[in-house]
């Protein structure tokens, strides 16, 4: 790639990748070459052999032009930032990814520990729930929020906090049914400590689901690709006009 090409790309929009693709073909770049260079372009390193990551990278940045050297990729990234105003939302480095991979199970285990042993040790359901959610947030920071959102089943995430809310509410109502006051845990056949642990599990599910959803869905924002599909789908179901989509 020459400086001339870079200058021409300055005025190009991100969307039209056709002539770049043609240029890459005349350069003799193969498909895999294009993928690798794309990864270099966005994140400054060649992605590992994880197919999901590579797919996510190409989804983040659907251009298919090739880059010859790292300096080319760098300079193009800067110029493109200035032109389009869009920046890579996460800086993905192998160090961060590896640390996140190693840390995540321990963070989740610590969250479960805080939830279940909050009755006798410092901790509790709020702390444990936030700790479990922060594991997902850590994954999102390390691997990017878009791949994380695609990895998490949104219905499962919503089901987590709906389940927590209904479990807590159900315990509150069941106490009335069993003849006590609302949320009176002494009327249940289980011991109070075990009932508290059950309530704590409900609270932790709700808190972790809410916080994970808060971060993941706010990071996704309003205009995303799959959001558009879903908006169209619900529009077809409801028959509403999609003037706001």
């Amino acid at each position, binding site marked *: 790639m020459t400086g001339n090409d870079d200058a021409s790309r300055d005025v190009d929009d991100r969307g039209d990748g056709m002539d770049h693709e043609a240029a890459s073909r005349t350069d003799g770049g193969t498909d895999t070459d294009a993928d690798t260079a794309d990864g270099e372009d966005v994140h400054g390193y060649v992605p590992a052999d994880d197919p999901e990551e590579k797919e996510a990278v190409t989804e983040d940045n659907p251009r298919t032009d090739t880059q010859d050297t790292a300096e080319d990729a760098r300079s193009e990234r800067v110029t493109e930032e200035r032109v389009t*105003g869009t*920046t890579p939302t996460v800086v993905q480095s192998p160090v961060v990814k590896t640390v996140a991979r190693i840390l995540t199970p321990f963070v989740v285990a610590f969250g479960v520990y805080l939830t279940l042993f909050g009755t006798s040790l410092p901790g509790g359901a709020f702390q444990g729930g936030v700790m479990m959610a922060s594991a997902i947030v850590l994954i999102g920071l390390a691997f990017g929020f878009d791949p994380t959102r695609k990895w998490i089943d949104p219905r499962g995430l*919503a089901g987590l906090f709906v389940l927590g809310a209904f479990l807590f509410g159900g315990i509150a109502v069941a106490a009335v049914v069993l003849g006590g006051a609302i949320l009176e*845990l002494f009327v249940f056949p289980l011991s*109070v400590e075990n009932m508290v642990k059950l309530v704590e599990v409900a609270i932790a599910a709700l808190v972790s689901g809410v916080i994970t*959803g808060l971060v993941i869905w706010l990071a996704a924002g309003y205009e995303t690709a799959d959001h558009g599909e879903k908006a169209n789908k619900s529009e077809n179901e409801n028959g509403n006009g999609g003037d706001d989509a």
Partner: protein
Amino acid sequence: MMWLGLEFALILFVIAAAVFVAFARDIVGAIVTFAAFTLGIAVIWVLLAAPDVALIEAAVGAGVTSVLFLITVMKTTGMSGENEATGARRAETDGGNTADADSDGGAFRPINVPALMMVGALAIPLGYVVLSLEPVGAENAPAVVETYADGELTPYGHYIENTLEETGFPNAVVAVLVVYRGLDTLGELIVAFAAAVSILIVLEREDIL
């Protein structure tokens, strides 16, 4: 004595971090410093023997809130990994932006005198209240077991004295949250639930519910 020195060092660190957050021009740096500020507060909670609060402070304040701030910055002004690019883009956009018109270089913003006076008007009464409290661990501090004049236990004293025998577990914080004040916690969680549902509705993704 060592703990006292650590506490003073932490307090100085927290105040310096807060001042930096208030005046830093680099917004991502301010967010990261805010996380460090919250982490310092969390360590102070541990030194004040409040590990439950410290856990929440570290996880929510330093973790989730910072990430939400970062997401906000990414979604609005954009975030770059390179300072040169940020500075160049900022210099370009500053031309028509009246909010940052006073950015004549430098890493810190100028002091806003009316805002400083408002903060002082708030901080002086708050400082007076804090100084009028009993020191931590003092005999007549309200957190320690305390009785009314007629010998009846106050609520604080009741929870600390009777949590173990009434509920069967020793953590009085969780006992208050779930057993003694369970309805309040239920209301709190309904608020959190409503927040999550509201976000889905605002983003028009309520079809996943």
